[in-house]
């Protein structure tokens, strides 16, 4: 799952979350495969970001590495270190972060190819 500014979204990508407008009205359901026309329509409705399945766009941005996320998370636990329950939670979150990042690394292989291939229109999304 990845949040992407709408100008980087391309046809064939698939919504991981429904799109809701400013008035709170649902516009598109989760699982919808985006078409050029649909993207245009969403742009005209002032939707600025979409949540997509997989990790289809390489933004090279500030995405934190799992190691960095874990380091920051561990620091937040400093005051409760040594408490058995809190230690269990910290370990579970650490495993969760690693598992999610592994999955993201596996998943985008096909998705990324799809997004980068010129004119990915018409191809069925992942």
């Amino acid at each position, binding site marked *: 799952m990845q949040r992407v500014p709408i100008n980087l979204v391309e046809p064939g990508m698939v919504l991981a*979350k429904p799109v809701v407008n400013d008035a709170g009205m649902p516009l598109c359901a989760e699982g919808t495969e985006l078409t050029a026309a649909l993207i245009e329509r969403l742009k005209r409705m002032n939707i600025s970001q979409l949540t997509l399945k997989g990790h289809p766009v390489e933004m090279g941005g500030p995405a934190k590495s799992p190691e960095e996320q874990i380091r920051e998370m561990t620091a937040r636990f400093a005051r409760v270190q040594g408490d058995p329950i809190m230690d269990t939670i910290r370990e579970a979150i650490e495993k969760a972060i690693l598992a999610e990042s592994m999955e993201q690394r596996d998943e985008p292989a096909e998705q990324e190819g799809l997004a980068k291939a010129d004119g990915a229109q018409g191809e069925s999304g992942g």
Partner: protein
Amino acid sequence: MGKEQHIKAITRRIQSLPTLPPVVKKLTAMVESPDVTAKDVGKLISSDQVLSAKVLKLVNSSFYGLSGKVSSISHAVILLGFNVIKGVVLSASVFEIMERSMIGLWEHSLGAAIISGTISRNLGLSEPEEISTAALLHDIGKVLVRVSLSEDYDRIIRIAREQDRAFREAELEVLGVDHADIGAWLSREWGLPRQLITPITYHHDPDNAPGLQDRAAVVHIADSLAHAFGVGGGPDGGGVPRITGKSWSLLGMPDIDLTALMRKILVDLEEVENYKL
């Protein structure tokens, strides 16, 4: 001075409660009447366009498990019930005050609401929507202190920072009570139902809640986990608060697949971004 007296002293000093839109007062009166219908409530909320947009947005968020499915207020009222709608309307109104001055706290509250929803559904608790709503409002006392007792608030922040102490300890030193006590008073003042008041009041101390201990425990744990995942922040710098052993076992947390739950939470939390009001 006992807690009650402290609260009395504080409430005397509060010049004005955060002002709520007239719709909220009408709504409070309306849901107490025995023959009110979902349609009446829907109509009332819809009369305030800004408010109804916010309510729809919140109702369509993942913590109510209805993502993107609700397109009208009356539909929302039928699906979620009066208590939840009242809580949602209140939080939409109150957090507007918060949005300007306390963005981190709003995000923290959203995070706690999402996590409460995930935990309650995972454990199969009844009325996860109400539990999420209680989580959304759990730090409401902080908003009141910030808005209505701003000098005290500044002192609390200073003590917490300079002496590296927990925000709550600093509150107790300055006010004699903490934001949970103040939130309890405020939520009674607003006529919220017990299902919301109890978790708000006991979110630090769920073991002593008189009834509804499971709900207080969920909000207590979700509050801590929101800090753990680093969602939002607050004036308190974001250290993870300790979870009580009793609440942890009460919910049967030692017996569940914790890593799987944390993964689910991690995914659900991506949604916080969508619901910044």
